[in-house]
């Protein structure tokens, strides 16, 4: 079994008061809480800090932990003192006659103390307990959102055994995501979370969905935005251009005098909704110039520049301070 220095983890001295321990825990828990931190190692640190606090906040567990002494270094292999083996075996859910301390984690030892105090053995009628809910992040392509998809999630989920002890269990969950997902949406899959205990209902599985950026379309809810590049003469004179939509290509009529940024709405051509009509597709006009001009094109541009009285910066003179 590996020793963990719970005081070091919380950054407090061994004689720290209960109040100091609570303050140190809160500070670190705020920093590393999985719902707050952006640190990829945050969740692991949060678990470590939580484990240290669960032991040190409880006077009985802290006393037992202190009995282990302070001569071990974090991560050092050690064997608990004589008597601990007996203590662990006697606790409900404790080890069998053939168990070895080598198979245990330090937190299991202190958890067994709590179970012993709760008397969680077979004397009382077990209460049905609902299984825990789980949240898993899922990234979908736009095509998945349009058609719906089946995803396979490989996750390590905590599961409780009959004694209430937690074990991480590797699981593969197959979940069907119906069509109509949008970026930032959550899907609740009832009963697909952790197993209930003593006849309690299973928990739920929550999928936090994000959409992978698409090369052409940008999604806002069920509406889609598509930049449509136009040659200056197409924008000025109007044109009919072919554009992609989730349903296939369509012809879009560009009105004469279209300016950059103008949005043309194609009703019902956005993402499908689970119920009701699909969102809309907005074609956003972009005016692009050829990067290389032929002699003839350059000549025509010069001719246009001379003939045109259009002043794109006319408002500067009016608005300047």
């Amino acid at each position: 079994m590996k020793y963990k220095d719970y005081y070091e983890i919380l950054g407090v001295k061994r004689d720290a008061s209960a109040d100091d321990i609570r303050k140190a825990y809160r500070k670190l828990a705020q920093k590393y809480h999985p719902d707050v931190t952006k640190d990829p190692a945050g969740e692991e640190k949060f678990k470590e800090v939580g484990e240290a606090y669960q032991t040190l906040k409880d006077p009985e567990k802290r006393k037992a932990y202190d009995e282990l002494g302070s001569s071990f270094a974090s991560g050092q292999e050690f064997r608990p003192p004589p008597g601990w083996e007996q203590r662990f075996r006697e606790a409900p859910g404790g080890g069998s006659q053939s168990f070895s301390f080598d198979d245990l984690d330090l937190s299991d030892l202190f958890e067994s103390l709590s179970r012993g105090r709760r008397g969680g053995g077979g004397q009382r009628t077990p209460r049905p307990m609902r299984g825990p809910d789980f949240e898993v992040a899922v990234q979908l392509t736009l095509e998945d959102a349009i058609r719906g998809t089946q995803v396979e999630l490989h996750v390590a989920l905590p599961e409780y055994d009959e004694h209430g002890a937690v074990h991480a269990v590797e699981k593969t969950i197959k979940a069907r995501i119906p069509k109509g997902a949008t970026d930032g949406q959550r899907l609740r899959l009832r009963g697909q979370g952790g197993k209930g205990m003593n006849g309690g209902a299973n928990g739920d599985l929550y999928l936090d969905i994000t959409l992978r950026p698409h090369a052409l379309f940008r999604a806002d809810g069920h509406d889609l935005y598509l930049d449509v590049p136009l040659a200056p003469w197409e924008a000025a004179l109007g044109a009919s251009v072919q554009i992609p939509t989730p349903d296939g290509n369509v012809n879009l009529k560009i009105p004469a005098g279209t300016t950059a940024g103008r949005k043309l709405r194609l009703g019902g051509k956005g993402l499908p909704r689970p119920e009701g009509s699909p969102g809309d597709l907005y074609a956003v006009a972009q005016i692009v110039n050829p990067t290389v001009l032929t002699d003839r094109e350059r000549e025509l541009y010069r001719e246009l520049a001379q003939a045109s009285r259009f002043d794109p910066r006319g408002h500067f003179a009016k608005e300047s301070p």
Partner: protein
Amino acid sequence: MTTENAFWMDTRTQLTLVELAECSGVTETVVQELVDYGALTPSGARPAEWAFSAECAVSVRKAARLCGDLELETSAMALVVSFLERIQELEAQVRRLRAQAGGSF
């Protein structure tokens, strides 16, 4: 509802007090306190008639987890819920602006 057991947690899905408590992993009393603090604003006059947008269950779940782990009271949880709702709103606005503005954003 989308398939037999799959539900989109968005404004289209409405939850009762009991359902919200179940979805969020808190007691009905905590949900009632969050309403008293003004963090949640259901439609309906009496608790038995309350209807919540399923979207808020996401904030309540997260706030409950944070407050449980940080040992905070329900008044603090109400604040966390309000801030999470605001963050959710602003994130939706950012997504909208990004989608509309494209590469220039």
